[in-house]
């Protein structure tokens, strides 16, 4: 009874192994974004998350016994019918092509923000930045009270 259930679970994992891998990557990225206090580690977590979504889209595009979405013998001169089942789905590839470049650009902006924060506070640890902010607030209140 126990064995057959375990076997069933294993079958489920193997049949949908791409989704399991993607879900684990998403979890790693989300955990890094939530739990890590270093800002650069958060940015790396965001990038892992984006990569997992890109993998998800690309894995959706695959078809068994199909080739890349470039029409074969396109300019061969002789006409031949094109079957959709012979070529992979081009649409997710297009979406991810732009998403990869945009993710690089957002990574650049995130790193620029991190550099700016480092110049201001001389640390990238979230708790230390919060401590400094609190201290600044206290000082501002004291000087305002006088």
């Amino acid at each position, binding site marked *: 009874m126990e064995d057959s259930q375990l076997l069933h679970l294993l079958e*489920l994992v193997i*049949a*949908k*192994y*791409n*989704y*399991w891998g993607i*879900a*684990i990557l*998403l*979890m790693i990225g*989300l*955990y890094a974004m*939530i*739990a890590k206090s270093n800002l650069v580690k958060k940015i790396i977590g965001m990038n892992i998350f984006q990569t997992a979504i890109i993998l998800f889209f690309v*894995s*959706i*595009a*695959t*078809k*068994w016994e*199909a080739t*890349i*979405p*470039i*029409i074969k013998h*396109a*300019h061969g001169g002789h006409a031949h019918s*094109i*079957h*959709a*089942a012979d*070529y992979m*789905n*081009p*649409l*997710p*590839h*297009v979406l991810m*092509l*732009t998403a*990869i*470049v*945009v993710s*690089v*650009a*957002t990574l*650049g*902006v995130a*790193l*620029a*923000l991190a*550099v*700016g924060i480092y*110049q201001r506070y001389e640390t990238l640890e979230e708790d230390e930045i919060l401590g400094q902010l609190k201290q600044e607030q206290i000082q501002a209140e004291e000087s305002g009270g006088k």
Partner: protein
Amino acid sequence: MRRAGLIGVLLFGAVLLYSSHAFPPLGDPQSPASRHVSDDYIEHGMEETAVPNLVTAVLADYRSYDTLFETTVILAAGIACFFLLRRYRRKAADYRLYRHIDTGITLIIERGGKEPEDSSEFERIDAQWVPYDLIINKAAGLVVPFLQLFALYVIFHGHHSPGGGFQGGVIFGATVILLAISRDLRSTRQRFSEKRAVYLACLGLLLYAGTGVACLLLGGNFLDYGVLSRLVAVDPVMARSHGILLVEIGVGMAVSAIMIWIYYNVASAGRHDEGL
């Protein structure tokens, strides 16, 4: 915080994995994503655009609005990095450092002192000791032209093989970044200045949008390349292919220049000195 995060992430993962049984199996030709519009692209893309690479055809023709604004997003990201980091005014340092390349001796020149004139023998450095690696320096210089040629091939051959503006543009940007990493930012900036990068980025986006406006002026819809056949003596299907090429060149210019621009600003924290 850490424990709450872990619990949240595990819940999130459990929901994802629980819902995975509702997804189609890997490689299923009948999966929802691969029906409807995708089949239409594959079966009619070639006869409608004369571009065998369907990814390029969908990217620059069927979904060209999307691509136009993705490129705009990248330009906005480049501008954001510029405004976040770039600093023009800063106090002048008390001394400048120059290295004699052959001997590796570092000269410290105080303010007002005479600076070396011959730039082939001396190079300006920022730290007291910076490793100078002849092998990396020369090898990077040797591969960069071939990489740039490959980048142009990827852009211009995107119709018939895997490639296109985004990929080729990123490769081209990477060659300049390779120079900046292997040498230093200051000498790379002399070859490819920030101003040139900004002009190239804006020109690329202008080429993209200008192609769309040209279609508009010729009586078609925005980015409807078929009407370009009135300008060049080809049939409307071939005109779509040429319109896609124009757009891809624009994307390649914009992407390569913005990658370089972002690297310049982030790597040197906006100071544009020696960099990494």
